């Protein structure tokens, strides 16, 4: 039964721990549940110099129409800005209504509230409903459960509503080490 293995066991070069950072400014989104998505980001210091007069933010754009929104979020139904202070992080974000297309932008917000994006995620299309909705699919057009529908939220100019989020990030490299 025992035979001589044709290769040496795992090469030392293959054992390296994953990097703690990639030195890039980037932001990524994944859908997790109909009402939740996973967001991570990394701030490359070359792109985002420390400047006390600007805020580094992640801008989340939610849309339920066929329109394409721009970097400022124009035409998006909901815009969320989340201030970030650490070099990298991740969190789970609840979407404000059912079935939006979502994009995340990492950038800086000037004191004049002008947003300058430096990295963007892909667009992702969130589910149009939950597994429970499939038999009563009207629900997915009306909004499900406790999720806020745009009509229930104070609107700002341009038909969008705007939310400022908290900075509750978890460093994703800690997860890979099992620290959290």
């Amino acid at each position, binding site marked *: 039964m025992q035979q001589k293995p044709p290769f040496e066991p795992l090469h030392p070069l293959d054992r390296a721990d994953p990097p703690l950072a990639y030195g890039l400014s980037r932001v*990524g989104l994944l859908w997790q549940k109909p009402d939740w998505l996973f967001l991570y980001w990394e701030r490359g210091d070359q792109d985002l110099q420390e400047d006390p007069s600007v805020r580094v933010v992640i801008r989340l754009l939610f849309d339920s129409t066929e329109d394409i929104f721009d970097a400022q979020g124009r035409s998006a139904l909901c815009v969320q800005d989340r201030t970030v202070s650490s070099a990298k992080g991740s969190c789970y974000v609840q979407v404000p209504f059912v079935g939006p297309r979502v994009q995340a932008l990492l950038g800086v917000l000037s004191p004049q509230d002008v947003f300058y994006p430096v990295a963007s995620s892909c667009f992702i299309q969130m589910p149009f409903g939950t597994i429970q909705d499939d038999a009563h699919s009207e629900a997915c057009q009306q909004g499900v459960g406790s999720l806020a529908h745009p009509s229930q939220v104070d609107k700002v100019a341009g038909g969008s509503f705007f939310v400022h989020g908290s900075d509750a990030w978890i460093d994703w490299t800690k997860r*890979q080490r099992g620290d959290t």
Partner: protein
Amino acid sequence: MKTDRPCDLLMVLHAHLPFVRHPEYAYALEENWFYEAVTDTYLPLLKVFEELVEDGIPFSMTLSLSPTLCSMLDDPLLLSRCGSYLERLLLLCDREMHRTRSDAALHRLARYYADHYKTLYRLFHAKQGRLLPAFRGLQESGHLELITTAATHAFLPFVSEPKVRNAQISAAIEQHARFFGRPPAGFWLPECAYDESLTSLLVQNGICYSFLETHGLLNARPHPVSGVYAPVLHPDGIAFFGRDPDCSRQVWSAVDGYPGDPAYRDFYRDIGFDLPIEDIRPYIHPDGIRVQTGIKYHRVTGPHVDLASKALYDPVRALERVAEHARHFVYSRVEQSRALFSVMQQKPVMAALYDAELFGHWWFEGPSFLKQVCIELNRASLPVVLSTPTRFLQENPQRMVCRPSTSSWGHQGDAETWVNGKTDWIYPHVHAAEKTMVDCVQRYVDHPDPLIHRVLAQMGRELFLLQSSDWAFLIKNGTAAQYAVSRVQCHLARFLRLAGFLRQDPISMEWLQDLENRDFFMEKLDLGIFL
């Protein structure tokens, strides 16, 4: 000759294993997944299909064979080891015949297993271990429609770079055409994970249809008027069949499903765990770690019966239950089709989607059940016939145009099985690797040095292997979690080191050669798929 065909039944089996190949070890615990699946599922399915052909019983099924599985089924090292695995199993059967000689009931079961595994071993040898040409033969005779899935079963909505998504699809189709002589008409989305960004890529790659979990179709916009009982057409031009929940429940459900019947063989009670270690030492891990041997003498017995209290298995009684369950399954489909036909304007279709490994591996009697379903459907002029997606689409060109909903067949139909607190750390690394891959191919694809092309191709393989949805699944479920974490880390480390070479870091030729031989997968990887 049946003339009345109100309803088509699509039996779709998805066969997949992650790429597990460890030439560096004489015995790798995780390689057993492959040997067990060959022994428990792929050989028994092939045997059943060939028996149906010999008996002249018409049948049509759809079989999705993942590229990683095809690579393993075509790998001389793994096939040689699989042959040795079967030989060891036969030796264990002989030993069990001897050990149980004073216990008539156990001895009958030992003889049953000896006959069962000898039959499979003979089939394995008759095919010279090469099952892919046998499946291809069944495709050419019109009994199987073979389709593919993503190159390494990546959860495609989580692939951030569109060019890498395309590469996962395109590489799979190229490999499928090489193994089976023609490109596939259909594509199994890994984990039935769908989002709208995939449709145009599938269409560009010549795919005509795919499958979705039930709610992916039922939550589509606009809502499909025929529910899951008619395929819908996405505006990009690809058809989607929705999984029929009734067909699924009868086979999958832990509560109502057939495999939980008390007469069926119990999966967990195995002599690898029952017998004293000295009796089974040559048949388990060399370090004495107990493993499943495939010889299991007990039956399910009841819903809440603990392992120690299981009753002995009776193969004759189990086969009687198979016949009863097959009749029940067919009867249920007939009733369902009558109800559907009375309310639907168009011809209904029922898509029964299953993991292939359910049949034989988890549900020992599963292949016999499939055979019996085919026999039952052919017995009388029933209003249900087995068909294939391609045939159904050709015969029924009318389709409602819809945009299906983002969905998967994971728990609750969402993606939490693959992205959660235990696994979310994986994706920032995978996404960084995807971007690096695209950048490197764009920059170096025309480079004259063949070594650069070797490095790029190996980077592509390592990235693909890193993207496998299986690692997150195993980590989340806690089964082989440590192994899965090590695979993620290992493929990432290899990828980054190869990428480093392109930035002038030194590289060992011996290491590169070693890597090409270890991850012997997608040998002819065309870098153009990343462009």
